């Protein structure tokens, strides 16, 4: 039977990863390379094996085998093929398997790299990866088996179990009927790719963590582990970012509340590793350039891994209630033990190696590049603390007062808003700052005050030119009647960061085109190619600014109105007039009952701009779905929702209308952001690392470096 085959594959892979762990341990302690190689090969096999396991489950889904509980829970006959396949991650047990599968893909990929120069890391990378895989597979095997069947006991009860219980027989397809089917809200392209992206981001962060732990265990605490994992980290970060953005897009398109982010515990659980991951991406540069912040980088990567696991735990154990929560299950306690053990081991190792992670350099000025990077890290940590507190405060309040008190979006917005603003400012200014000196001569020659002055002046000299357009934007905004102080600050900061970033591109490209006698655009292209990390980073910054524009637009300038209208009536919102033209109710081809309204949109002058079709679909299973009618331009979105569908008639149809200025920039910014990350992560030949000694004697003061 296919289901039993699939379960067998899971068990074999589980045992194989346990073997990998033991072989790596033996190889490390007995110094036997053959054992380590054997461990590597066993990790190499996890992906092909789990591919077989996942394909088996997909086969059961596609063939509608409802005697398997997971299949019954997530699909029904009437679902299209692609949804049956993607239902693999539509429920707890399947998504755990999917998680392990992706993890195995990364683990296998990492075994295939050239290990010659990093032999000592190998056993520990295998151990960390295999422990993680074995843990998730263990959850599948012992608690949440996606291959469990339904059985019928002698007393006639239908219940799920992995193995045939005594005196029970397998349920027949007739007895079980049609499956429950996937929640219609999840039948959206954004929702189909959103979880895989998030999971990819989550699992990819396991690799840098594995290298970090390997560095801690082996005592090779130079920046090799960081250089090795830079690209893994970027990829992880890219997927995590994509997952978050797609989740937002899905919410905007499907949930019909005119927003994209609700500060739900599960959203925050995915956002927290992103925060530490982003801080990590920045602070590793300081370790590479200046040999500083070594402790901090270790802490950040450990935190990121911990938050990945912790976030997965929170959403799947039923500890927090959320719209995203999976049904409660028995995996909580084992997850908890896993979290406890990994936290304790990581922290113990970090303390053990603390002395060896000493900084090679010193912070010299508050205005040096490294100081600003550190400030950036502190701001990210600030947002993390805000988020973390928001997530665990219901637990604390329940412990102290026996009542769950949940904090809402206003708390997060008030507490994290200023921090985001400061980050936006820093994002603009930091690229103008200079790396600190390292040579002793320079140090002795100048007093602290002189140094601060020199670093600050270096920024100021470069800042004034790009500040002019930002100032003009501010004046323009003020003149156009915007008086909201936060909006003014936010938009000006966005303008400043954009102009500084553009200025940085322009300055460097012009210098190169003069020096190399190249055309300006050729120079720009080659420049970006030569220092992909920096210019990829700047491009990401531009993407973030665009996204910030969208966020400021919808958060601060959103207007909404609600009205029950009869056909022929009008409603005004933000200079638009909407006329309710008609209402239709009809069944769709796949059995949905559709209620659809048609509205015409006119601008201020009465010119027809187009039609909107907000609708309300009821699936054959009885589950409803609201699909807003959206008119989307670069300036704004007009977003119309049909509410309270039950009482809908041509005489009274209640509509909710949102006007969301600038929101499209959020999605456009995301594309720029992805593009920038790809530039930064694009593989190039691995260069020999420059020893720290040699680096420290290089000319250190390079404004804009």
């Amino acid at each position: 039977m296919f289901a039993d085959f699939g379960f067998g594959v899971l068990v074999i892979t589980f045992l194989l990863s346990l073997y990998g762990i033991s072989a790596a341990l033996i190889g490390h302690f007995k110094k036997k390379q053959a054992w380590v190689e054997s461990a590597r090969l066993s990790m190499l096999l996890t992906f092909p094996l789990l591919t077989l396991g996942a394909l088996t489950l997909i086969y059961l889904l596609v063939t509608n085998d409802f005697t398997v509980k997971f299949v019954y829970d997530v699909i029904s006959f009437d679902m299209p093929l692609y949804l049956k396949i993607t239902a693999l991650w539509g429920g707890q047990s399947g998504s755990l398997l999917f998680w392990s599968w992706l993890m195995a893909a990364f683990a296998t990929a990492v075994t295939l790299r050239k290990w010659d120069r990093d032999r000592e890391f190998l056993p520990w990378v295998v151990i960390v990866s295999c422990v993680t895989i074995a843990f998730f597979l263990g959850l599948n095997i012992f608690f949440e088996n996606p291959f469990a069947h339904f059985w019928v006991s002698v007393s006639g009860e239908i219940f799920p179990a992995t193995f045939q219980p005594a005196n029970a027989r397998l349920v027949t397809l007739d007895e079980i009927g049609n499956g429950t089917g996937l929640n219609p809200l999840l039948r959206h392209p954004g929702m189909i790719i959103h979880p895989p992206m998030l999971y990819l981001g989550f699992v990819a962060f396991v690799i840098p963590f594995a290298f970090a732990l390997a560095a801690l265990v082996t005592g090779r605490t130079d920046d090799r582990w960081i250089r090795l994992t830079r690209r893994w980290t970027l990829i992880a970060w890219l997927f995590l970012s994509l997952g978050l953005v797609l989740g937002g897009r899905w919410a905007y398109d499907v949930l019909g509340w005119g927003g994209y982010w609700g500060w739900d515990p599960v959203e925050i659980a995915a956002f927290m590793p992103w925060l530490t991951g982003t801080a990590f991406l920045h602070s590793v540069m300081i370790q590479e350039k200046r040999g500083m912040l070594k402790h901090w980088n270790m802490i950040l990567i450990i935190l990121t891994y911990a938050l990945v696991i912790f976030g997965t735990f929170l959403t799947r154990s039923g500890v927090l209630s959320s719209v995203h929560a999976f049904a409660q299950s028995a995996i909580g306690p084992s997850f908890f033990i896993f979290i406890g053990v990994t936290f304790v081991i990581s922290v113990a190792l970090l303390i053990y190696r603390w002395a060896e992670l000493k900084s090679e350099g010193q912070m010299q000025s508050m205005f040096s590049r490294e100081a600003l990077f550190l400030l950036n890290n502190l701001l990210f940590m600030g947002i993390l603390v805000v988020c973390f507190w928001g997530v665990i405060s219901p637990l604390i309040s329940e412990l102290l007062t026996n009542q769950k008190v949940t904090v809402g979006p206003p708390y997060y917005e008030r507490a994290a808003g200023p921090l985001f603003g400061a980050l936006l400012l820093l994002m603009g200014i930091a690229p103008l700052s200079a790396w600190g000196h390292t040579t002793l001569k320079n140090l002795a020659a100048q007093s602290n005050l002189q140094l601060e002055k020199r670093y600050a002046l270096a920024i100021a000299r470069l800042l004034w030119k790009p500040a002019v357009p930002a100032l003009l934007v501010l004046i323009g905004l003020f003149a156009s009647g915007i008086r909201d102080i936060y909006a003014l600050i936010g938009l000006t900061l966005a303008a400043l960061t954009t102009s500084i970033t553009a200025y940085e591109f322009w300055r460097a490209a012009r210098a190169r085109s003069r020096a190399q006698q190249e055309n300006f655009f050729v120079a720009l292209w080659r420049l970006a190619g030569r220092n992909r990390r920096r210019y990829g980073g700047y491009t990401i910054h531009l993407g973030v600014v665009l996204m910030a524009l969208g966020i400021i637009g919808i958060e601060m300038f959103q207007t909404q109105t609600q009205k029950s209208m009869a056909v022929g009536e009008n409603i005004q919102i933000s200079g638009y007039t909407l006329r309710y033209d008609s209402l239709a109710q009809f069944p769709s081809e796949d059995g949905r009952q559709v209620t659809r309204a048609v509205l015409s949109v006119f601008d201020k002058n009465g010119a027809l701009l187009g039609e909107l079709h907000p609708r309300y679909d009821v699936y054959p299973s009885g589950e409803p779905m609201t699909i807003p009618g959206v008119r989307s331009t670069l300036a704004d979105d007009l977003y119309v929702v049909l509410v309270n569908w039950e009482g809908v008639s041509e005489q009274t149809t209640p509509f909710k209308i949102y006007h969301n200025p600038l929101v499209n920039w959020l999605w456009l910014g995301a594309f720029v952001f992805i593009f920038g990350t790809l530039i930064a992560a694009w593989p190039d030949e691995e260069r020999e690392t420059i020893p720290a000694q040699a680096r420290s004697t290089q000319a250190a003061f390079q404004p804009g470096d």
Partner: protein
Amino acid sequence: MSESTVAPRRGMPVWIQVLVWVGLLALLGLVAFGLRRAQQGTVQPGDTIPDFTLTLFDGYQYAGKSEVKFSELRGKVVVINFWASWCKPCEQEAAELETAWRDYQDDERVVFLGIDYTDTPTPALGYLTKFEITYPNSPDLGSRVSQLFRIKGVPETYFVDPDGKLSYVQVGPFASAAEIHSIIDPLLKP
């Protein structure tokens, strides 16, 4: 680099280590507490049933309201039946349950509650109509109540005494209304 610039190698100060471990343990303790809360609910005969609230299906009411709060049923014998529209054995007992309910519906001391486990509204309402079920019924949103009782499958029926303690669990369908009577009646004796 001259000798004097090499800082002595120092580990993490002890007080910070203590702080880190205390913080970590406090966090784990908090999560353990949350987890224990979330996991509670393995009910055995003799256990007090934790409180829960049901939002009834359209067309069903209890005491004039569309919501039933379990704690407000204290002092009554409560019969909680887990079922699903896809469950054939449930159909066997549906009529017996309804018959038993009709015998007790004028007796203020007995309440029947039906809870629909992992199901969809349309077939569920069809099932209720088909078997003319009149006692309050509700979907189990997010499987919360079935998790609370840790049901292993459907049908399962839980009998709660007037003190709110679980007195008997029936796994699988009832054969007759008389069987249901024989469980409820002893609980009604003072």
